[in-house]
C-alpha cells in the first residue's frame, strides 16, 4: 500500500448518465449559470479580463469567475499549453464537478498556433481534454469570446455539450494520450 493511497483517492470515476426528469430545465439553468475558472497562463487571459468588465459585461450572460475548480462549470484554456501546464490543467479539470465544459481560446490549443514547432507546446488540446467550444483567433477579442460563450450556451441548452461525459467514458484513451506527452506522471492515477 503506497503512501499516495492514504492521501489520495485512487479510484476511477464512475460513468455518468445524462438526462432525467428535469433535463430541460437543468440544461436551461446550466446554460445561464456558467461559473468560470480560467486557466490563464497563455496570452488569452489578457483578453479574458476585459470580457468581464463593464464594457463587455459577461455577467449579464450569467457568467461568473470563481476561485476554485470545485465550484466551476467552465474551464477556459487561455491559449497555448506546455507539457508542464498540461499537468495542472488535467488536475484542475478532473477536480471540477460534472457537468463541466472546456472552452479553448485562440489558435494554440487547436494546432499549436505560432508555437506549433516548439519542443514542449501542446499542438492539439483535443487529444488530452474534451473541448466543447473552440474560439479561434490570435488572440480572440472579447467580442469573439462572448460569441463563443453564446455558442456554448446554445450547445448546453440543446444538450450537445457533453464533453464531460465523453471524457469519463473514454478516460483510458485520454489518459494514454496524456501520459504519452507527460513522461513523468507524478500525479495520482485519478484526480479527485
Amino acid at each position, binding site marked *: 500500500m503506497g503512501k499516495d493511497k*492514504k492521501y489520495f*483517492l485512487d479510484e476511477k470515476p464512475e460513468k455518468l448518465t445524462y438526462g432525467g426528469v428535469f433535463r430541460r430545465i437543468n440544461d436551461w439553468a446550466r446554460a445561464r449559470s456558467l461559473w468560470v475558472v480560467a486557466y490563464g497562463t497563455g496570452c488569452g487571459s489578457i483578453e479574458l479580463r476585459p470580457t468581464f468588465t463593464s464594457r463587455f459585461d459577461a455577467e449579464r450572460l450569467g457568467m461568473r469567475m470563481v476561485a476554485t475548480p470545485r465550484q466551476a462549470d467552465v474551464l477556459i484554456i487561455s491559449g497555448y499549453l506546455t507539457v508542464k501546464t498540461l499537468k495542472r490543467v488535467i488536475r484542475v479539470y478532473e*477536480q471540477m464537478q460534472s457537468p463541466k465544459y472546456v472552452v479553448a481560446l485562440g489558435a494554440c490549443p487547436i494546432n499549436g498556433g505560432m508555437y506549433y514547432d516548439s519542443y514542449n507546446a501542446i499542438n492539439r488540446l483535443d487529444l488530452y481534454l474534451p473541448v466543447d467550444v473552440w474560439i479561434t483567433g490570435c488572440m480572440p477579442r472579447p467580442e469573439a469570446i462572448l460569441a463563443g460563450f453564446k455558442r456554448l450556451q446554445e450547445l448546453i441548452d440543446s444538450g450537445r455539450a457533453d464533453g464531460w461525459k465523453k471524457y469519463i467514458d473514454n478516460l483510458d484513451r485520454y489518459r494514454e494520450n496524456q501520459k504519452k506527452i507527460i513522461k513523468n506522471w507524478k500525479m495520482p492515477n485519478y484526480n479527485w
Partner: protein
Amino acid sequence: MVNPILIIGITLGSAFLIGIVQAFRPRWTGWIFYPTLVFDFLASAVNLYGFLSGSIGKPIMVKIGGFPPPVGINLLVGKAEAALGTLIFAVALLGAYHWGRRGFPQPQGKIMVLFLLLALGAAGISFTGDFFNLFVFVEITSIASYGLVASSRREEALEAAFKYMVVGSISSTFILLGVVFLYKATGSLNMLDIGGKIAGGFSSQVLGLISLLILAGLLVELEVFPINGWALDIYQGADPVVVALLAGAAVKAFYLVYLKTASYLALPSFFKLSLIFGGGTYLVSQFFAWRQENARRLLGYSSVGQLGLLILAGGLLLSPSLPASSRAMVLAAVVLLILNHSFSKSSLFLLADNVKGEKLEDWKGVLSSSPVFRFSFTTSVFSVAGLPPFPGFWAKLLLVMAAARFSPWLVALILAGALAEVVYYFRFFYLVSLGDKKAEVGNNLLAPLVASLFLVGAVPLAYKMAADKLSLTLPGGVLVLLGLSLLVYLLGFSRLLQWLASLGLVAYGAYLLLPFLKADLSGFFLGLILAGAAVLLLATYPGAKNLSSSFYPAYLVVVFSMAGLVLSTTWFSLFVFWEIMSWASFLLINMGRGKKAAWIYAVLSAAGAYAMLGGISLLPSPYISSVKSPGPWLALLLSLGFLVKMATVPLHIWARDAYGESPDDFTPLLSGIMSKMGVFGSALVFLYVVINLSSRSSFNYLLGWAGVLTAFFMTLLAVFQEDLKKLLAYSSVAQVGYILLGLALFTPLGWTAALYHTVNHFFFKGLLFVAAAGIVYRVGTSYLPHMGGLIRRMPLTFFASLLAVIALAGVPPLSGFAGKWLLYTALIEKGWIFIAVVAFLASTLAFLYSFKILHAVFLGQLQEENCEVREVPIPVAVVEIILLIPLVVLGAFPRLILDPITRVLGKVTALGIPDLKYTKTLGVVSRLGHWNALFLMVFFAGAFILALIFFALTSARVKLVGQMDVGYSGEVPRSPEDLHFGYGMYDHFRRAVKWLIYPLATRVWRGIYEALGAVAEMGRRIYTGDTNTYAAYVIGISLLILLIFKG
C-alpha cells in the same frame, strides 16, 4: 524519676572514659558512647513521662555538694527542661547513629568525647539553676562545638569554626561579665533567688544593663540578625551531623535559657527586644534565603528564621499585656515549633549529608532516587514550611491566632515570613524534582527517616494541642478518609491496585459522607466533588502509564480535603483543608512536566491562603456563618485565597502552566472540581462576610469586574495559545471568571447562573480535559500544530469534544447555553450593563478558541506521524460517554439542574429563590425574556434530520475523496504538513489585540519577585564572611541593645 545529675555525671564520666579507652582500644569507644546517649535519652524521657503523667508534681531540684540553693550550685528540672533534655538526646542519638554508620572522623574517640560534651553542655544549659553554672555549660557547649565544627577538617569547616570561636568568645565574655555584675548587684547567682528578689521589688540602676549584657550574649548564640553570619557559615561549612545537633538541639537549650533569664530578670523592655529581634531575624532570614543556591546555607537561613520565630514567640510570652488564653496558645506554639524544627531540620541536614554536592543543582533528581529520601524530604519540608497536618502548621496557626490579639501587624509579619519560607522551600522542592535522571544519594537514610516519622507521629499530638486551644473540630469522617488515602501509598508496588483502591475509597467516602448530601450549598458541592471524582478517577486507569506511586494518594487527598472543605463549619477547619488541598495539588502538579509552574502555584496559593489566615485571625468568632460587621479589607483578605484558586486576574499567572503541565490525569480534577473550591469559598465570603459589609455593593461590583476581566483576558489568551492543555487551562479560568461574576451579582438569578455553570463547567471541561489526556497519551504531544485530522483516528473523542465545545461556547441546543442565558439575564436585570458588554464580548471570543480546539486537533490534515494513532483508551472513552450524556440531556431539560439549585438557594435565606417561571410554550421565563430549551433542541434536531434526509435523497453523487485531494491550483500537494493550517491560527487577529495581551501581570509579578530577590541578594551581602566584620557586628549590636533598651 531519674536524678538529672546522673545524666550529667554519667555523660561526663563516659566522656573521660572514652578519652582513656581511645588511647588503648580505639575501637571500643563506641561501646561507651552509644549506651551513654541511650541512657541519657531514656533518663530524660522517663522524667518527661513523669511530668506528663503527673507522677512528678513539682520541678526536680538537685542540690550539688549538699548546699541549699541560694549558696550552692543547683540543677532545676521542670517539665520544659525534661522535654528539652529528651529532645536534645533524641536528636543526639539520631545524629550519633547517623555519624556512626557513615564513620566518625579520626580520631574517633575524641570526636565522641566532643559529641558527648556538646549534648551534655546543651542539656546542662537547660537544666542549670545557677547563672555562673550556666556560663560554664555555655562554654562547654561552645568548646565542644568549635571542636566538632572543625572536626571534618575541610577548609570551610575550619573557617566556620574559627569565626564561631571569635564570635562565641565575645558572646561568652558578655555572659560572664553579665553574670558577675549580676552577682555584684544582687549578691546571688541562683536563678530562682534572683528572680524572687526582683519579683519582690529589688531594683538597681545597673540591673537593666546587666541583664541586657546576658541577653545580648545569649542573642548572639541565638543567631539573631545581623549577628548570625557565623551561624550561617557553620550550617554551610560544618559536617551536617554536627549542624543537625547544633540546630536541632543545642540552640534550643539556649532558647530555653534565654526565656528563663528574661523572665527571671523581668525587664519591661524584654518583650519589645525579643519581638524586634525575633521578628526581624525571622523575616529577614526567610527573605534572604530566596535566591540562595547552596542547599545547606539555605537550610541555615531557614533555621535562623525559625529561631527568630521562636524568639518572637518568646517575646509574646514575655509581654505583660498578653491574655492568659493567648499565652497558652503561644506556649503550645513554642513547644510545637521546637519539636517541628528540631526534627525537620535534623532530618533535612542528615539528608543533605547523603547528597554529594552542596549546590541546589546537585540535588536535582534526588527525589526519584529513593522513596525513603522522597518521603523524608517531603515530610520535613512540608513540616518546616508549616503545612498541615504537620506540627509546624499548628504552631503557626496558634501563633497567628495569639498574635492577632496582640497586633495585626505582628500577624502580617508572621505571615509574610511564612510566605517567604514557602517561596524558597517550594523553590527548593521544585529544583530538586527537576530533571529526569536519578541522582546518586547515599543510603544512610534511617536517621532522617526516623526524624520525619517523629514528625508524622507528632501530628495527632499537635492536632490535639491546637484543637484544644482553638476549639477546633474537623469532620471525623473526612479525617478517616484522608488517613486511608495515605495508606494507598503503601500499595505503591502496583498502580492498578492503587487505582482500584482509590475507586473503592471514593465509593466508601461517598457512603460515609452520604448524610451530608443535603440540598444546601455544602451538599451541592459535596455531591459535585464525590460524583465528579469518581467519574474522573475512572479515566485515570493506569494501564501502561508511567504514574508516580504517590499519584493516587495525593489525588485522594485532594478529593477528600475538598470534601472536608465544603463540610467545614469554622474558618479554621476550612483553612486546614484548604492548605491540605493546596499541597496535595502542588505535589500532583509537580509530578507533571512543569515543575516551575507547580512552584508558582504553591507560592500564589500560599499567598492567598496566608491572606485568608490573616483575615481569619481578625475574626472574633471562627464560625463561618457568624462574621459580624467586617471591614472591606477583611472581606478582601478572606476572599484572596479563593480568588487565587479561581485564578482571577491578576492572580492568574500560575494557571496556564499549572493546568497545562500537570499530569494529564490530574488536570480534569484540577479544572473540573478543584477550581470550584474557589467558587465555594467565594460563595461563603459573599454569603457571610460581604453581606454584612457597609460598602457591599461596590465590593460586589469590584469582584464582578474582576470576574469578567478574568473571563475576557483569559479567553483572549486562550485564542493565541498553541498548546492544547494550556488553551483549555485559559478557557477553564475564563469560565470560572464567569462563575465569579455570577456570584458577585449576588442576586438569586446570578447565583443560579453561577451554580449551574459550576456543574456544567465540570461536565464539559472535565470531558475536554479527559479527552485531552487521552489524546496526549495517544499522540504524545499537547502541541496543537503537531496534531490535526484526528477525527479519522478518534471519531468518538471528536464527537465528545464537539459536543463539549458547543456546550463550552454556549451555543443553544446543548447545556452550555443555559448558564450564559441566566448570567446575561441576571446582569441586565441587575443593571451591570458595562460588565454585560464585556461578558458578551468574551463569550464571542470564546468561539475563536472553540474552533481552534476542534480544528487544530481533529480537523484539517492528518499528519504523517499520527496515521497509526488509535482511539483513546477504553476507560477514557467510557468517561467521555458518561460526561457526554448530561451535556445533551441538560440541553433539553435544564430544569434537571435548575430545580436542585432552586432548592439549594431556598436554604440560603439571604438570597431567596430566583424569579424564574416555567411554562410549556415559552420554556424558562425570566423577567426579561424566555428560552425554550426543549423546543430548541427538538426543533434543531428535527430540522437537521429533515434537511439531512432531503439532502441525501436529492444530492448529486457524493464521493468521499482522500485527505489531500484538494483544489490546490492544479498542484499535487506533497505532504500533509504543507496543507495543514495549525500554527499561528490567529496571528492576524493578534495584530489587532497585541496591546491587550501584553503579559502585564506576569511581568509585574515577576518584576516584584525579582526585585525582592535582588534586594535579598543585596541584603545578604552584609554577611561578608569576614571575621573582623562579624565581630564588629556583635559588638555594635550589643552596644545598640544596651543603649536602646536600657530603660
